[in-house]
């Protein structure tokens, strides 16, 4: 394969020399996709563990005793909407529309904070109901899976918040939209993981 050195021309007229690459794709974008691929396998092991231990706890509290479907449904809806918000922010960044970028990115960060807050509330509520980390097999696998997902949401929120700060300062012009695109890809991945977790962990567990 012939190596090429691509030159990226920004929408704002600035030209930036891209990293040397042998593929017709920006290195950072390929890197985030490889990272996302590895994360798929990471979450696969956590979901497997939860499914293996499902219904094996010898003592409660059990999912049917403590899960609150309306609260988690609200959190799920907020996370889904945040994916919509960040893609609109990216649209704004690519158009060079700073106002649109800041508005939608602010909403995304707010959704991230809301979801993380919902999870903190949920965990503290469960703890006060007697569900500690080592109470039973359900609690250990549940806290590990959803806790790691919550950590990913928190990291994503912080990442997007730094980009929001850049956007407010005017440091995120159309030529740097790739910075937001990479963060948005990570954010969408966090969303699709929750798309799996919500029915598998919450709805299916309530059934049993």
């Amino acid at each position, binding site marked *: 394969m012939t190596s090429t050195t691509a030159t990226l021309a920004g929408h704002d007229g600035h030209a930036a020399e891209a990293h040397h690459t042998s593929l017709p*794709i920006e290195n950072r974008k390929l890197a985030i996709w490889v990272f996302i691929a590895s994360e798929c396998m990471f979450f696969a092991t956590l*979901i497997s563990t939860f499914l293996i231990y499902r219904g094996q706890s010898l003592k409660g509290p059990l999912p049917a005793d403590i899960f609150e479907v309306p609260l988690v449904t609200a959190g799920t809806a907020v996370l889904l909407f945040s994916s919509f918000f960040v893609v609109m922010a990216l649209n704004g960044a690519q158009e060079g529309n700073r106002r649109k970028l800041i508005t939608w990115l602010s909403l995304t960060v707010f959704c991230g904070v809301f979801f993380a807050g919902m999870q903190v509330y949920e965990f503290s509520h469960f703890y006060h109901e007697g569900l500690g980390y080592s109470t039973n097999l359900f609690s250990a696998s549940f806290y590990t899976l959803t806790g790691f997902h919550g950590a990913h949401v928190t990291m994503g929120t912080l990442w997007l918040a730094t980009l929001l700060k850049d956007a407010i300062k005017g440091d995120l012009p159309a030529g740097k939209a790739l910075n937001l695109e990479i963060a948005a890809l990570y954010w969408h991945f966090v*969303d699709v993981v929750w798309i799996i977790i919500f029915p598998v962990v919450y709805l299916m567990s309530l059934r049993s």
Partner: protein
Amino acid sequence: MADAHAAEHEHGSGGATYVKIAVVLFVLTALEVLLYEVCYGESMTGLASLGASLEPYFVELLLLLSAFKFWFVAMFYMHLKFDMKLLSWLFTFSLVIASVVILALLALFTYNRGLWWPGGLW
């Protein structure tokens, strides 16, 4: 401005498409919760016969709805539908490995469950 249109064309999507996808995702999530309520909830006793007929397929239906949501986000919000095929292959490859890991572990532990949990075969 021409660049903005080019970027939009390149991704084959704009604000209107994103709004439509958001509505679809919201409806699919509502269907998931509705399915649970019809099958197992206490607030929809009037639909007990429907719930009884759907109950045997509860897990399959949930996974199907989730798969649709997953597909919409990956294809449109993550732009896989419009980006180079290499990325789609990379993501699909990792999903296949992840699925095999889940199925293999479930099969292994289900087969050996009697050894490791009380009340099993052995």
